[in-house]
């Protein structure tokens, strides 16, 4: 049982949660993720860790409501419980003194890129951040990113905030204007692919953080396999960070669409009566909390 100690909306459909998870808070490094299962009938989904406070024993995650589980999760509030949280999983991002680094992020990807940008800065790199979103109300953590970056560009597709345009256009200009040693891209797959297409011919080392579908997160099932340099790699244990030039994004997109129909069914069922689903989750998890207390009491 994992208690939500803080929940606040960050943008339209995006919510930030601070969750009590002392073991994870102590061990996590930027770039790693957790897997959550909300309740007894829930699926397991991976979510990138955005921040942690080892002293308080908490981790922070940002969740965009896209599928059934993330929609239901974003209905949770402070004081609610999540049944299962496991991590930190995956390899931490490689943090070295590279020189000039550009961190490109789209939408909720900014929440995931932020801790890595912060560590890159701490490691003595020059950090240029390029933050994008479809519109102003989908933009997250702009101030936090600015605080750890030497230069920050903010773009929206519709021009409702910052510059109007795509992150890749801005990246192209940055690459033309100065020598860049490392590019990190976190966001929707088409965005990461566009970044890879831009940097690969220039031979600039580029890292992407892949969000493939996972079950266990420990290498046991192989469901998250991605084609990297034409061979199968498991995003959960070999990643989630990979060399962008070697990733087959086509296959990643196809595999991410594998359960599209089932996802639609689940969303429809949730939307038919979201209140009932939330009530069920709360009741079930309260029952689990009672059972756990009973077990602990029996050991005292």
């Amino acid at each position, binding site marked *: 049982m994992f208690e939500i100690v803080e929940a606040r909306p960050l943008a339209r459909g995006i919510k930030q949660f601070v969750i009590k998870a002392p073991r994870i808070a102590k061990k996590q490094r930027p770039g790693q993720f957790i897997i959550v299962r909300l309740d007894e009938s829930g699926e397991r989904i991976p979510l990138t860790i955005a921040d942690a406070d080892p002293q308080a024993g908490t981790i922070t995650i940002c969740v965009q409501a896209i599928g059934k589980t993330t929609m239901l999760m974003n209905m949770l509030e402070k004081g609610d419980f999540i*049944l*299962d949280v*496991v991590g930190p999983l995956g390899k931490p991002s490689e943090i070295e003194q590279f020189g000039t680094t550009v961190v490109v992020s789209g939408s909720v990807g900014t929440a995931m890129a932020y801790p890595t940008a912060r560590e890159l800065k701490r490691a003595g790199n020059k950090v240029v951040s390029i933050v994008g979103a479809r519109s102003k109300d989908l933009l997250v953590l702009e101030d936090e990113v600015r605080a750890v970056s030497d230069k920050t560009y903010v773009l929206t597709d519709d021009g409702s905030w910052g510059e109007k345009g795509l992150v890749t256009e801005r990246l192209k200009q940055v690459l033309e204007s100065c020598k860049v040693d490392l590019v990190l891209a976190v966001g929707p797959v088409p965005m990461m692919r566009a970044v890879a297409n831009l940097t690969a011919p220039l031979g600039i080392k580029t890292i992407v953080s892949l969000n493939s579908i996972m*079950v266990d997160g*420990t290498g046991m099932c*192989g*469901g998250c396999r991605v084609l990297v340099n034409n061979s199968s790699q498991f995003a959960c244990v070999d990643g989630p960070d990979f060399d962008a030039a070697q990733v087959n994004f086509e296959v990643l997109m*196809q595999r991410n*669409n594998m359960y599209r129909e089932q996802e639609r069914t689940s969303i429809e069922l949730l939307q038919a009566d979201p209140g009932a689903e939330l009530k069920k989750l709360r009741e079930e998890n309260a029952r689990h909390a009672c059972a756990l207390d009973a077990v602990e009491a029996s050991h005292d």
Partner: protein
Amino acid sequence: MTKPPSNNPLPNKERIKLPRQRVPEQDPQVRAHNFQEVNLGFPAEQARQESLRCIECNKPGCIDLCPVSVNVRAVIDLILAGDYLGAASKVREDNALPAITGRVCPVEDQCESGCVLGKKGEPVGIAYLERFVADWERETGQFGSPVAAPATGKKVGLIGSGPASLACAGDLIQMGHQVHVFEALHELGGVLVYGIPEFRLPKDIVRHEIDVLRRRGVVFETNVVVGKTVTIDELMQEEGFNAIFIATGAGLPRFLNVPGEHFNGVYSANEFLTRVNLMRAYRFPEYDEPLYPCQDRDVIVVGGGNTAMDAVRSALRLGAKSASIYYRRTEKEMPARVEEVHHAKDEGVHFEMLVNPVEFLGDEKGNLTSVKCIRQELGEPDDSGRRSPVPIKGSEFVVPCHVAIIAAGTSANPLIQSTTPGLAVTKRGYIAAKEDTLATSKPGVFAGGDIVTGGATVILAMGAGRKAAKAINEYLKGLDEPKPEQAQATVQA
């Protein structure tokens, strides 16, 4: 040695005339469409009838051939006395999970192959009897617990909650140690819950066996990936564990490494079974975890072991139009239990022998549509002593297939090895452990089950768990004896 008094009223010559009792089963036509248990188990009268067949050998081969040495003879005698709870606690002296082993043990190669009745006729149905007493105990809400030794104050951490770990936990708690089991997944039981399907081993039974261990004092913690969430060194140095038993299971799924394996619809058996069993995807959308649809489609399972049988029979129950086993050798070489193969055939699984997939084919959306295979013939025996298959040139053929499940074994998961300094591994990446004690190269750390041997059976893992418990107990006793070097050092100081 004089024989102990027996509760069997029949003379031996009458006993050997009794036929082996047939265990009731769900009708194949019905069960092929549900996930309920296939074997229904003996009612009490049948258990008594079967027990009457035991001729109480002086040197019982059944006990010798049991990896955990269950005292079968004494158990059978207690059944005949009508003391089912006594029989259950007698089993539990050696076997922490009788309701499970009574269902999944390959008894034809173990206890039952040691039964002297099997030489001329059919052996005593030992597994069914073991299952009977465990089920009786559970169904009547009773609990045949052996009495534990006084507390030692020593704390042992067990990594993984599969059969090796649970068997080890049962023995260690009995010896008076504190036992803490760490599980990476959200549910306890390891392969018993993510691997073996409901129709062969209902999850309620696994849950009950774990509850029994919990009542005996074992502490369980889920959602801990040792190597990630916490390391073995941290457990020993910061959390006060005196010894560790690593039993994390087989690990990474092997794929065939042929083109097209990334198409949607190609699964490892591990993933397919985890979705169906652990995540209850067969009850989607009541449960959220989705499964690539098998309903009215052609499903091929590549492999010939018990995992392949579990996968293909699951696919059938999910409504597959056809569910087939594609195996590269012949039925004779298949590692699956004979009973599982029979069950699969009765249910309508198709078996295609001496074939191997060479390529998976898909459409423009990346969805699997068919598989290209090649026919094979058996050549010379390989390292395993089995004749190895050789492809027949020009024999390729393409079959329609929407879901392909690869059950070609597993390899070692490096998670613990790579995060535990001083832990030696074998050439193939498994943890190196001494044969007699299961001690690793790291003091106080023991390892057993599939992470040492590679993929094996539930009962062999349990045997390893018991062996480790014994060695850990010895190790912990040794901790209390002052070491000569230390004593000397104190004097010098």
